[in-house]
């Protein structure tokens, strides 16, 4: 709780800092008549902004090279290059992406001009003769939106940086932490092997404690490493036959499957354009959990299936295990959250959070349906772009 509060304070402080460094926004007015430029400038002067004036489309375009604008007021009727043409050329500038253009025109209020303007990307329209109050309040709305957007972008940059630092921290920690744990395990193992007949039963038990704890720590470190790698490493999509992944994952669990007499069904899983690592991480964790969270009274029955949904695929891993109380629906995906004692069901509390982190990075999500004693079904969806040939 204390930590959550501190995180919130940090967030607020960043917010204040981000909004404290405000930059004055730029407005561009384009009109071929000097008196119009001056009149508009006068109306807008009370707004807290830098006002740039251009007497032609060409002049406006050259200003775009040097400045970023929050809003552009563009006269439609100009010699040489009219407002529509200027707007179209402006849109080609990267710095104009998302910048609102307000057309200012005296020509007829006919529909066709309005729709022509909309097609070009104008967001608004003002008719001459200009009503100063309307002009001012319209421009103010766009300036406000711009300032809010800038603030969000700044905050995003701050958050992204602290996220990157955290990821790097986790990675380096896990990497460097592996060494001493491996040493403890190796040397305790060597001692066990070399001195077994010299040690009494109690000492051997202590040695065993060291080894089993070192191994548990090693597992945790490995899981943290996997978790921190997700998002650090580029996600590459390729043609993936999910049936192949399922077969590989099952092979990894061969021993448990034999021991428990588990039945795992899957067929007709799709061939997708996706990250094979994503599919492996998800199936490993979900099938692994389905095998693990069992009461041992009947052999595990697990079904892996997939169905086409509106914008991609929805996978389901269903089991007949001990089930999950739905009130844990969010906690279960939080890192290090465990619902059971490690003596009952061993684990590190990292697997499902890795799954969620990974699938969300790929634009999907993961959730479950369950009740205690009635098994659980974990679902995850994977959006597929319409351009992909999903059924290859």
């Amino acid at each position: 709780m204390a930590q959550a509060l501190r995180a919130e304070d940090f967030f607020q402080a960043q917010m204040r800092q981000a909004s404290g460094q405000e930059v004055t926004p730029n407005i561009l007015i384009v009109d071929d008549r000097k008196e119009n430029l001056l009149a508009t400038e006068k109306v807008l002067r009370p707004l807290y902004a830098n006002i740039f004036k251009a007497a032609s489309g060409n002049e406006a375009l050259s200003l775009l090279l040097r400045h970023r604008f929050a809003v552009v007021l563009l006269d439609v009727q100009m010699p040489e290059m009219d407002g529509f043409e200027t707007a179209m050329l402006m849109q080609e500038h990267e710095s104009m992406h998302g910048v609102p253009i307000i057309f200012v025109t005296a020509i007829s209020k006919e529909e066709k001009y309005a729709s022509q303007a909309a097609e070009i990307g104008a967001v608004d329209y003002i008719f001459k003769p200009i009503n100063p109050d309307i002009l001012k309040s319209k421009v103010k709305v766009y300036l406000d939106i711009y300032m809010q957007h800038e603030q969000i972008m700044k905050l995003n940059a701050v958050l992204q940086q602290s996220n990157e630092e955290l990821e790097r921290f986790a990675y380096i920690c896990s990497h460097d932490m592996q060494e001493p744990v491996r040493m403890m395990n190796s040397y305790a193992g060597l001692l066990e092997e070399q001195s077994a007949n010299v040690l009494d039963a109690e000492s051997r038990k202590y040695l065993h404690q060291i080894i089993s704890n070192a191994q548990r720590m090693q597992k945790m470190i490995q899981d943290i490493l996997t978790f921190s790698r997700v998002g650090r490493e580029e996600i590459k999509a390729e043609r993936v036959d999910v049936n192949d992944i399922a077969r590989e994952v099952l092979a990894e669990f061969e021993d448990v499957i034999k021991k428990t007499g588990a039945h795992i069904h899957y067929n007709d899983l799709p061939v997708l354009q996706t990250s094979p690592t994503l599919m492996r991480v998800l199936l490993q964790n979900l099938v692994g959990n389905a095998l693990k969270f069992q009461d041992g009274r009947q052999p595990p029955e697990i079904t892996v299936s997939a169905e086409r949904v509106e914008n991609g695929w929805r996978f389901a891993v269903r089991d007949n295990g001990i089930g999950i109380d739905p009130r844990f629906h969010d906690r279960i995906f939080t890192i290090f959250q465990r619902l059971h004692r490690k003596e009952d069901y061993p684990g590190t509390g990292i697997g499902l959070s890795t799954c969620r982190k990974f699938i969300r990075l790929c634009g999907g999500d993961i959730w479950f349906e369950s009740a205690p004693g009635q098994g659980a079904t974990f679902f995850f969806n994977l959006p597929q772009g319409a351009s992909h040939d999903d059924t290859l």
Partner: protein
Amino acid sequence: MTIPFEILLIEDNEGDVEMTRRAFRDIQPACNLSVVNDGAEALDFLNKQKNFDGAPTPSLMLLDLNMPRMGGLEFLENVKTDAALKVVPVVMFTSSQSPGDIRNCYDHHASAYVVKPFSGKEFTKALQDIVHFWTSLGQLPQVV
């Protein structure tokens, strides 16, 4: 071959050095194991300079990745651009399983990449297998 194989271990972790020495006590064919603690020291050893006057030229090197002063990658950069030394196979022996590290090492012309096993027994077995491969199955270049 009657002369023992010369192997150079480049490793900063005391524990790993000790375990490697221990493993080499039993490894057949018998090898002569030399140990240095980082890349810079390894370069001195290979160039027979500083304290390494008269050091043998290794037929095979075992190289750790993360070391002080000069790490594994920088060492590879040096050794693989040296006309005389670049023929000596370098087997990475490290705890990193990061795909990036693996790729980088091969990019720098490492001959193999082996992750240090977690248990002492497996560790010994891995070293045995490496030596077995390079001395019995693979052919090593003649070095002077």
